């Protein structure tokens, strides 16, 4: 096997230096110490070594092109005469140069991202996006249109499949994602899509996409699929906002009604308590007063029974004394008839005068 492993760049330098070391010793007209690492420079220095030397140097340069580096996030697939030979991890490596060997170095731990319906113009912050309506506008199952932006994150799970099975991997993933999402959204109504269905659509699309990509043998693993922005198309945005407003209005109407209710019910209860309390008071008053009246009556009647005539006369006269002083009195002897009418008439006139 023709592979020599280098753990780092220093190993490579040493290796190249060693190749040249012997030759440098033979030569006397060279003052400069050997400088490794740059075969091209070396070849210029050894022009005098003759044609054979040139060939050897060219051969070494050729071998040197077999040195390659695999980054910490990369893996390399190696082909020898077109045939798969092996997959190697990070580090400095050597493998047969072209045309004997061929290598594909790919970032395998990186999470790749496909954007559909939009394009990140500037990663920001603040990030700027460009909408791509022909990708984002789609039909829902009830023949409405919505605007969906989404992105898919994926990783290479099988590098061999990734390289050998599919050409245009990115396009493949993008087309499949678009098709899957449209299929899923096409099975849902607009109401569901815009409100509660987002999670479900995400999950379903992801499943579908996985199914499609597995059937292609892409060697790709879907890590995530996010619906970034789901909304009505620009043209009908206003109408949708209006619906949102109406929904708010509905809540407001109900709130106001609740407010009204919360106002009048306690009020009514208060009023009711008031009425009852007043009635209670009235009842007590009536009872107590009657008891008082009765107590007075009983007291008087006891006195009365002691000497009925005397008491009666006394009470009568006392009442008269009390009531008579303030009022107009006309005392007539029944024998003097005739003048009564005049007296009353005069009196009425006098009264009218007072009233006027």
């Amino acid at each position, binding site marked *: 096997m023709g592979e020599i492993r280098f753990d780092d760049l220093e190993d490579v330098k040493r290796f190249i230096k060693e190749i040249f070391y012997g030759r440098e010793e033979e030569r006397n007209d060279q003052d400069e110490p050997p400088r490794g690492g740059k075969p091209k420079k070396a070849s210029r220095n050894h022009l005098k070594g003759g044609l054979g030397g040139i060939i050897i140097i060219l051969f070494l340069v050729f071998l040197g092109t077999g040195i390659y580096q695999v980054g910490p996030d990369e893996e390399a697939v190696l082909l020898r005469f077109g045939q798969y030979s092996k997959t190697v991890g990070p580090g400095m490596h050597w493998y047969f140069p072209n045309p004997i060997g061929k290598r594909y170095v790919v970032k395998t731990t990186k999470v790749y991202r496909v954007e559909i319906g939009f394009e990140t113009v500037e990663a920001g912050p603040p990030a700027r996006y460009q909408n791509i309506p022909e990708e984002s506008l789609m039909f829902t199952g009830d023949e409405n249109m919505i605007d969906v932006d989404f992105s898919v994150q994926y990783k290479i799970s099988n590098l061999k499949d990734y390289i050998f099975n599919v*050409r245009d991997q990115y396009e493949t993933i993008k087309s499949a994602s*678009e098709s899957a999402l449209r299929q899923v959204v096409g099975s849902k109504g607009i109401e569901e899509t815009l409100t509660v269905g987002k999670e479900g659509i995400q999950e379903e699309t992801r499943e579908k996409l996985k199914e499609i990509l597995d059937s292609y043998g892409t060697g790709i693993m879907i890590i995530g699929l996010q619906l970034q922005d789901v909304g009505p198309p620009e043209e009908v945005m206003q109408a949708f906002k209006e619906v949102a407003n109406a929904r708010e209005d*509905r809540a407001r109407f109900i709130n106001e009604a609740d407010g009204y209710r919360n106002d009048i019910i306690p009020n009514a209860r208060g009023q009711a308590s008031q009425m009852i309390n007043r009635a209670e008071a009235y009842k007590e008053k009536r009872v107590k007063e009657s008891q008082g009246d009765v107590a007075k009556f009983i007291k008087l009647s006891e006195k009365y029974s002691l000497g009925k005539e005397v008491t009666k006369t006394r009470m009568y006269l006392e009442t008269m004394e009390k009531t008579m002083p303030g009022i107009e009195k006309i005392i007539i002897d029944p024998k003097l008839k005739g003048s009564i009418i005049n007296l009353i008439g005069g009196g009425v006139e006098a009264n009218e005068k007072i009233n006027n």
Partner: protein
Amino acid sequence: MKKLIISILALIVIISSTSLFQVSEIENAVVIRLGKPKEVVTEPGLYVKLPFVDNVRYFDKRLLNYDAAPKGIIIKGKKSIVIDNYARWRITDPLLFLQSVQNIAGAQARLDDIVYSELRREMGKYTLSEIISSKRDLIMENVTAESKSKAKSSGIEIIDVRIKRVELPKENEQNIYKRMEAERNQQAKKYRAEGREKSLEITSQADQEKTIILAEAYRKSEELKGEGDAQALEIYADAYNRDPEFYKFMKTLEAYEKIMDNKTKVILSTDSELWNMLQTK
């Protein structure tokens, strides 16, 4: 000596570059001898051919993308829609492929014919809403199956045909928007009406409760008042029944006191008990 080595090296390079060829993991090759296909190589590796006489053509064996430009299609009910689809395919028989479509560009044209005609035929059976939702899977399956069998004769295997976008021509799109708008407006009206409905329900219920509360309070208060009156009546009756005559006398006197004020004019006869002394004395 040096020259000999150099010549040998040069010869090796020339021979190897003209008589050796590689086939990679991602491709198949067809060896053509003087214009006639001689051999198909499907395994990757290093192979030998006759220099200058044999010619090698390579064919990608990976999954390939066919993404057609959006096309108009007439569907059920003479409606026209615009459809954008894609297909995954691969070259399974390089020789057949070479003979029938030559290269990928030729294959794309062939796929265009096959897939488009299948799509047109299949989609013509359905309405828009069926295409969007319920029959989408079925259409894709049928088109895939049909296209698959037709493309076989070109050495092509179609893995699947999938619908990407379904669109309406611009003028129909406007109709959709109008309809959506109308639907939304209805929805908005419905929400508001529902709000009012609920609001009326709540307020009227509150009013009802209020009325009941007050009526109940009225009932109770009147009852209480009645009780008070009744109790008072009973108390009075109990007491006054002991001495009705005195009661009448006393009440009459009390009534006088209340009735007579400074506007009262009384005409009294000297016959009355109070004044009769005016005569007799």
